[in-house]
Structures are given as structure tokens and as C-alpha cells.
């Protein structure tokens, strides 16, 4: 059996499990609810005050970024809850024992689990993200600078947290691994905020701490990309009397990550998965 075939078998199995265990239906239901509520809430805002002036646009953009942050948090939690029990419990209850006696390698099981859950997360992130943005645009007429890329960043952020949770699940119990991933997510976001402060005020130590945190767990790199994509244009900011340079470093704003940072995200996922595979291969069943 080729590696690709084996990985796809496990990925399909993971998708079927998500479907059977109603994870997909729960996500679809919640998406419909959130999109509906988003449209209703933004419509009320547009009723109260027409979104025409720079200040109103800035206000709507901030609420939109807050909405995206909430969605980012939900996605991160979904990734952690899906990834944390992906490997460990299957070892503990003997499920993997029966499967690994077949011609399939541990690395293929790990990659297949990751791929299956990644498909669930990416589809959810993109579908829900675009629907929510569509609801905002329809209700208010607000056009962020890069509305099409924002959900892509969120999907990428969820993949990083999924990777972290799955890697931890090779050696750590689901609860402990999940807690570590959630704390990691929070710390990375906070470090990003502090790094932004360092940038804004030209503080080398804070800037370096932010960079180090992003290297260790680059989820905030992608969140900042999403926030930047949903921000108003510099012209709007200027009209509203906001300094674009300072605004960019607020907790709910950002800039598109450089290609180098995006490459690092890919390298980080590949590296983390390699470590996870190494740990799983050395684990006694």
C-alpha cells in the first residue's frame, strides 16, 4: 500500500467519524445561527446610523474584526477539541493496536488523522467565514480591504492549532494536551499584542519577545493577517483622524504577514508533524 493510499484511508475514516458523530451537523447548525445573528445585528447598526462617514465605517470595521476574533476563537477551540483526542485515546483503548497490525505505518495514521480533521476545519472556516462576511457586507455595505483572504488566514490559524493538539496527543492525555494547546493559543495572541506594542513604540525587547513567540507558535501571525484584511483602508482611517501606523498595532488590527512568515507557518506545521510522528513511533502500544 502506498503511503498516499494509506493516508487517504485514515482521512476518509476521520471524515466519516466527524459526520457520524454529528460534528459536521453541529458546525453547520452553529454557522447558520451565527450568520443569521450577524446579519440581524449589523442590520440594526445600519438602521441606527447610516454607514457612510469614516467614523461609522471605522466603527463597523472594529465590530467586524471583533466578530472575526470571536470566530477565530471558536475555530481554535474546535481545532483543539478535535485534535487533542485524535491519537492518544485510540492507543489507550486498543483501537490503534488492531489497525497497526495491518500494513499501515504510524506516520500514515498520524497524517491521515491530521488530513481528515484539517478538511473539516478548512471547509468550516471558509464556509462560515465567507457567509459571515457576506452578511456584514449585505447588512452595512462595509467593504474591508481584503475580504476574500480573511477566512483563509483563519483556516490557516486553525490548522496550526490542530497540528499542535495532534502532536501533543501522541504523548499527553487529551485533557492535558487540549489545555496546553488552548493556553498556547492565548499566550501566542497575547505575545502578538505585546509585540505590536513593541513595534508601535519601538521597544526592542517587546518586539523580540513578540517575534520569538510567533516563531514558537505562529497562530498569531495568521490572526494578524485576518485582522489586517478586515480593516478599513488607510484613506478611511485618515478621514476618521486615526493614525494608520498606530492603528495597525492595536490588538484588533494587523497587517498581512510577509511571505517569509507564511513560509515559516508551513515549515512549522511540517516540523511539528515530524516531531509528532517521531514521538508516536517511539511510543509503546
Amino acid at each position, binding site marked *: *500500500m502506498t503511503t498516499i493510499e494509506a493516508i487517504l*484511508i485514515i482521512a476518509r*475514516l476521520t471524515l466519516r*467519524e466527524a459526520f*457520524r*458523530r454529528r460534528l459536521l451537523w453541529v458546525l453547520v447548525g452553529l454557522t447558520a445561527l451565527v450568520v443569521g445573528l450577524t446579519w440581524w445585528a449589523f442590520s440594526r447598526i445600519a438602521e441606527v446610523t447610516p454607514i457612510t462617514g469614516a467614523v461609522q465605517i471605522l466603527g463597523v470595521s472594529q465590530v467586524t474584526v471583533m466578530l472575526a476574533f470571536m470566530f477565530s476563537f471558536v475555530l481554535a477551540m474546535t481545532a483543539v477539541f478535535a485534535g487533542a483526542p485524535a491519537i492518544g485515546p485510540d492507543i489507550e*483503548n*486498543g*483501537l490503534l*493496536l*488492531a*489497525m*497497526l*497490525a*495491518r*500494513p*499501515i*505505518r504510524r506516520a500514515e495514521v498520524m497524517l491521515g488523522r491530521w488530513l481528515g480533521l484539517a478538511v473539516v476545519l478548512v471547509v468550516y472556516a471558509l464556509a462560515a467565514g465567507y457567509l459571515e462576511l457576506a452578511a456584514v457586507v449585505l447588512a452595512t455595505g462595509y467593504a474591508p480591504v481584503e475580504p476574500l483572504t480573511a477566512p483563509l488566514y483563519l483556516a490557516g490559524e486553525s490548522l496550526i492549532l490542530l497540528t499542535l493538539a495532534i502532536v501533543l496527543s501522541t504523548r499527553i492525555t487529551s485533557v492535558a494536551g487540549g489545555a496546553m494547546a488552548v493556553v498556547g493559543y492565548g499566550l501566542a495572541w497575547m505575545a502578538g499584542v505585546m509585540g505590536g506594542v513593541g513595534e508601535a513604540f519601538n521597544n526592542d525587547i517587546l518586539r523580540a519577545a513578540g517575534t520569538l513567540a510567533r516563531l514558537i507558535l505562529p497562530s498569531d501571525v495568521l490572526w494578524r493577517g485576518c485582522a489586517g484584511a478586515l480593516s478599513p483602508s488607510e484613506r478611511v482611517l485618515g478621514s476618521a483622524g486615526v493614525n494608520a501606523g498606530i492603528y495597525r498595532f492595536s490588538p484588533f488590527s494587523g497587517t498581512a504577514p510577509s511571505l517569509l512568515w507564511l513560509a515559516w507557518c508551513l515549515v512549522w506545521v511540517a516540523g511539528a508533524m515530524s516531531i509528532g510522528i517521531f514521538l508516536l513511533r517511539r511510543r*509503546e*502500544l
Partner: protein
Amino acid sequence: MSGGAGSAAGGPVPAAIETRELRKEFGRIVALAGLTMTVPRGEVFGFLGPNGAGKTTAVKLLLGLSRPTAGHGRVLGAGIGDVATRRRIGYLPELFRYQGWMTAREVLALHCELARLPRADWAAEIRAVLELVGLAARAEGRTETFSKGMQQRLGLAVALLGRPDLVVLDEPTSALDPVGRQDVRAIIGALRDRGTTVFLNSHLLTEVERVCDRVAIVDRGRVVAELRMAELTRESGVGIRVTGPDGVAREVAARYGPTRVDGEWLFVDGIAEAEVPALVGALVASGGAIHAVVPTRQTLEERFMSLLGAPPEDPNEYETASVGRETEQ
């Protein structure tokens, strides 16, 4: 996939399992001290030992589920852990679970896929093994609703998919009722008939005694004895309830083999069945009165206990061949 008893073209068929000084350590704990054994093709091989002897560790090493600290081994002619060879091995783990959200048929289909069986054969394969283990009526039941015994039957069905050359069964009857155990014995017998090698890891000595051609007894991570069940039978004897002149009967019987006396019973070990009439005749000729003659044999349990240094409760306690005894440890 074919049965394993046939000879390969151009050379002798390698043993089903061959290990040399296979060793496994977990930190400072030595789980397997140096396992050396050979399991010939087409036999039902019992792997016995007390709890903690290293039986399950040995099985995991043979299947490539664990890496040996030292030593080496071959399974079906390939190095242990060879991924391609696993297509020809069926395995029922001791402690296992299948995806609870799947039906029995779906679990079997998944393992058909993992074992890379041709898709066109899946339906027939699945139907056959479900019939064999008595689960056909529950094929569409979700496995999380199955009793432990049904789970074990399903595990056995998974292990039998694709007519593997080697079937490794780790405590296959531990959760089964007497009917289920009888079914498993019949299945193992059918596997032997078609040339499949069965490696049976069990602590149920009577089960092993009934189905195995050969057994290895392992203790503290080493094989302490390897014997054919036929040898155990050959070591049988006869028990004769005889009365008559004191000491004469034993003196006569000693010419036929080692003797022991327990009340009116005189036991002669190792005597061939054909010699029993002559012995009885000699006893009668010496003035003895014969009240009963019964064949005796040493049970596997007695051999097991004597090898592991713990003698049976009564060294003279032998069991008549016609009476079975269920022993669970």
C-alpha cells in the same frame, strides 16, 4: 492470499515464526529476556505462561507493534515488523476496541481496505467471516452496542479476513461463554485443516490442550519448554485398581515402567497402550485381582506447573483421560 502450508517454488518454506534471543526492556524492566522459538507452518501453536511472563509483549514484537531491544526474528520469512508481510497476518489483540460508531460490517470493510484486499472480494469475505463467528445476524449493529463476547467474536472475524497465512490470537476466548469457546475451537480446527498457522496466546490451559499441536511455555521472558501435545499423550500411563498379595503387583508392574501406588490404585507411567493387556495378564498370573483399568495422562496443567517450579497440589493426582477439567488461572 493462500494458505501457508504449501511449499514455495524453488526452496523450503520458512517457518511461520522464528525468533532468536528476542529481548524487550521497558526502562529497567525486562519484559522479555531472550525469546528463542520456532513455530512451524500449518500448526496450531500454543504460547503459555503465567501473568507477566512476556506473552503479549512477544506477540507485539512479532507483529511489529513494538521494537525489540535486542535479538531478531522472522515472521513468514520476513523480518519482524515488515509492513508488507502484515497483509498475510490476522491478529486478534487481547485488549482492543473497534470504532464504536461503526457497524460490524463497516469495521470489517475498513480492515478489508487496510489489508488491501481486492474490493470485489469484500462482500463475500465479510459474509463468510460473519457466518463463521456467528455474527451474521448482527452485521448492521453498531459495535458500541455489542457485549464483550460479541466484540471478541468480531475481533476474531477481523483476524480471519482474507484467509491469512498466520493468525495470531491473543486470549481469543477470555470473554466467551462455553458455547463461544467451543465455536472458537472449531474455527481453529478449520484453520489448521486449511493449512493456516495459528499462534494461540492463552492462559486457559485446557483450551490450549484441546486445540494445539505444539506448545511453548514461557516464564520470566524465556521459553522454558517446548513440547508437542502428542509427546504429552505418549507420556501417558495406566491406572489399575488391584488387590492381592502385598507388594507383588508393584513388583510385577515395575517391569513395564515407573510405578506409584495410591491405596488400591497402582499407576504405571509411560506404558504403551499395546502393553496394557500383557501387564493385566501378568498381574492376574501373580495372584492379583483386577477391579478397574483406566488410562491416565499427565495434563498440560500438571506439566505447566511442574516446569514453572510449582508442583501440583497432589503429586500423585493424575486425571483419567476420559474426564476433562476446565482450568482457569
